[in-house]
């Protein structure tokens, strides 16, 4: 018996091995998303793919019969379940969970939202969504940066929200639309898909400059720098490498480089989204500035492994300036408060080449809706709409540290920050949050096109090699990066674009 059994078991074992993982399941990088090669199928207007259920009430004889989105009917008798994937943590996660609980209990449409938190980075969430799309099980709603939403859109996996926004029955009034900061709504549009809205803005923050005001005063300066020239001068004046003190803490997050390009009057991507332009004069000036800062030991790089190391160094008064997201405000407040010698600090608009024409990098993941049934798509939209009601969005801004995306909610969020005990000893920091809303008028978006993630990696490599390590020529390196970036752009462009 055993003589027959062992060869059989051995063959089974070999077959299993052939199907199994190759050796060590070592940690892997997020897999590159597959490149779309075919023209995307045009998304159909929601509500046109299937016959809409009959309305429960007879329409008034004087009105024209509803069509499109307006024809979709949701009711408590026939609940619509939708799935929402997010990666929020801390206070933001708690708020989302509480909101969903309340929404499920109170909404009049019988919508039941299930939330799943994806532990990991935005890149992990992006990989997971791509895998789910290929497996035919994407969520109904997920956080997505604009370039990621564009990638999903290439194959028609996310829907255009425009028909929902303009729906008479379920959409927004002009007054409500006007209450959203226009720039936030615009930032979810991609010139490659004219007229389409690929995400709904819930979370936005700006690239700002955190400043140690007391240290600045020691340098004989009362005000944070307004121009890039002043910024460079102060950064170098503050630096004392022997004591590990530097003017600038630089994390090689490419949004910081993009913010510099904007501040120099340039763009990352052309307005028509047909080519990358960060090798322009503004790009060259930005990279040259960084190169000088590192060459003259006026800046220190914060390695990616030293997560949030710029905050601890700022609190320890090892760096005068930090370029970072405005969402760090509460964390900086806690760090400085806990430090040995608390000091006055704030954040300001990043210094500009021409302060009369400022440009600020404003970013944030939106919530995109994935293609499913008309009912689920509508339910998803109604959830998004409810979440961004002024009262909710004001609380959300406070819980998450993001900006309130609606004008009417901004004063409440500002008041909540100003009255927060955390900022009691840092009035300048609390005031900074209020000034954040002034920056929206000068906002710019990096690149809302598919394939921007690998382009960010290209840009990051250039900054690392040329500015930080001092290798190669600034212009030549940027030209090569743009050439490669444009190839990626072309590869990921919708067919016929």
């Amino acid at each position, binding site marked *: 018996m*055993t*003589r027959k*059994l*062992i*060869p059989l*078991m*051995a*063959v*089974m*074992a*070999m077959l*299993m*091995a*052939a*199907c*199994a*993982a*190759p*050796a*060590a*399941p*070592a*940690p*892997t*990088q*997020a*897999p590159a998303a597959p490149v779309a090669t075919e023209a995307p199928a045009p998304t159909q207007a929601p509500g046109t793919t299937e016959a809409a259920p009959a309305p429960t009430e007879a329409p008034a004889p004087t009105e024209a019969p509803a069509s499109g989105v307006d024809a979709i009917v949701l009711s408590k008798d026939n609940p619509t379940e939708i799935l929402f*994937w997010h990666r929020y*943590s801390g206070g*933001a996660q708690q708020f989302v969970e509480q909101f969903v609980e309340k929404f499920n209990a109170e909404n009049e449409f019988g919508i039941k939202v299930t939330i*799943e*938190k994806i*532990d*990991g*980075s935005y890149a*992990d969430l992006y*990989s*997971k969504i791509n*895998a789910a799309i*290929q*497996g*035919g*099980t994407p969520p109904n709603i997920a956080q997505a940066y604009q370039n990621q939403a564009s990638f999903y859109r290439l194959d028609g996996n996310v829907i255009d929200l425009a028909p929902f926004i303009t729906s008479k029955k379920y959409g927004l009034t002009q007054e409500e639309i006007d209450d959203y900061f226009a720039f936030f709504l615009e930032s979810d549009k991609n010139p490659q898909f004219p007229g389409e809205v690929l995400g709904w803005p819930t979370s936005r923050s700006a690239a700002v400059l955190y400043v140690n005001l007391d240290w600045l005063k020691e340098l004989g300066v009362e005000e944070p720098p307004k121009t890039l020239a002043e910024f460079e001068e102060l950064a170098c004046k503050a630096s004392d490498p022997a004591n590990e003190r530097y003017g600038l803490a630089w994390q090689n997050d490419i949004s910081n480089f993009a913010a510099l390009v904007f501040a120099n009057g340039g763009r990352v991507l052309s307005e028509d989204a047909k080519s990358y332009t960060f090798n322009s004069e503004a790009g060259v000036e930005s990279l040259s500035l960084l190169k000088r800062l590192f060459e003259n030991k006026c800046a220190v790089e914060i390695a990616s492994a030293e*997560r*949030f190391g710029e905050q*601890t160094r700022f609190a*320890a008064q*090892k760096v005068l300036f930090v370029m970072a*997201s405005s*969402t*760090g*405000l*509460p*964390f900086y407040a*806690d*760090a400085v408060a*806990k*430090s*040995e010698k608390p000091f006055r600090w704030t954040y300001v608009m990043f210094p500009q080449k021409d302060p009369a024409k400022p440009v600020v990098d404003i970013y944030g993941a939106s919530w995109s809706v994935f293609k499913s049934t008309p009912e689920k798509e509508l339910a998803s939209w109604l959830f998004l709409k409810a979440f961004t009601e002024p009262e909710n969005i004001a609380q959300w801004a406070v819980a998450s*540290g993001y900006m309130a995306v609606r004008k009417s909610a901004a004063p409440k969020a500002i008041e909540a920050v100003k009255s927060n005990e955390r900022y009691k000893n840092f009035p300048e920091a609390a005031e900074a949050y209020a000034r954040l809303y002034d920056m929206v008028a000068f906002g710019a978006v990096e690149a809302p096109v598919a394939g921007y993630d690998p382009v960010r990696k290209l840009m990051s490599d250039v900054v690392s090699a040329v500015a930080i390590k001092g290798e190669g020529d600034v212009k030549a390196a940027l030209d090569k990066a743009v050439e490669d970036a444009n190839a990626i752009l072309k590869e990921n462009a919708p067919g016929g674009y």
Partner: protein
Amino acid sequence: MATATAPPLAQVETRRAPGRSLDRVNPLVYLILIVVGVASLIPFVWMVLTSVKDYGDVVSLKFWPWPPFGNSTPRFDNFAEAIRLIGVDQDTGLPMFFRHVLNTALVTAIVIASSVTTSVLAAYAFAQLDFPAKNVLFILVLATFMIPEELILVPRAVMMNKNYLNWYNTLPAMVAPFLANAFGIFLIRQFFIQIPRDLYDAARIDGAGHMRYLTTVMIPLARPAILTLALLEFIWTWNEFRWIQLVTSSSNMRTVSVGLVGFLQTDGGAQTQLAMAVAVMVVLPVVVLYFFTQRYFTEGITTTGLKG
């Protein structure tokens, strides 16, 4: 029936690589090894020390904030605070961290049991049996080694979805790719082929079949290699992040590494001392296990792959 029993490992004929004995090694070599060892330990020491620091000491960049260099006291409650922040498992009422530990232990146990079993059986076949296309099959198994993980990650994850196996967010999905392991087969086979054929002949004369010979002679002799494989599987599975993250959706199905990443991936900032407390709790089992099994591990690595 007199059965063949395994001789001590030392009696199995192996040829030691020629070289100087350890007591005659240049002190400079020791010095280099000590420096490299200390350098390797620094991040680990920093992690452990940070896990019991006050947040104020973290932001003040103090390496040792306690007496005699400082006035702080170690904050062991960081561990409890971190566990509290990870949340509570609604099903059991237990802290979610413990649920993650249990999930990880279960997945690890299944993977170790399965991969060791399949590796031993397949290795025996490749080392001891003769069958058609044996070498071709062995090369095919080894070829799975060469496929980059990134290449097969998404297709495998897609297979777990409802359109295929419908294992998404279940235990089978979490363990399936790791139930057999080409590296394990190769490692054990290399050990098995060193065992003299005479032992097999003796066992056959005593009437032992393949299974008896495998369990009473080969496995005891190959214990260091098998323990090495089990230890490696433990480390790999305990630390596995990407796959589990891809094929699970609910928090109560997650493992410690995914939970840790979720804890670390905050927007805007982090309480480093709490993150390090979680990291210490996650890596502790691996460190403890390695501490107690390193002798076998070293033995297994150094005695495989040598021609007998």
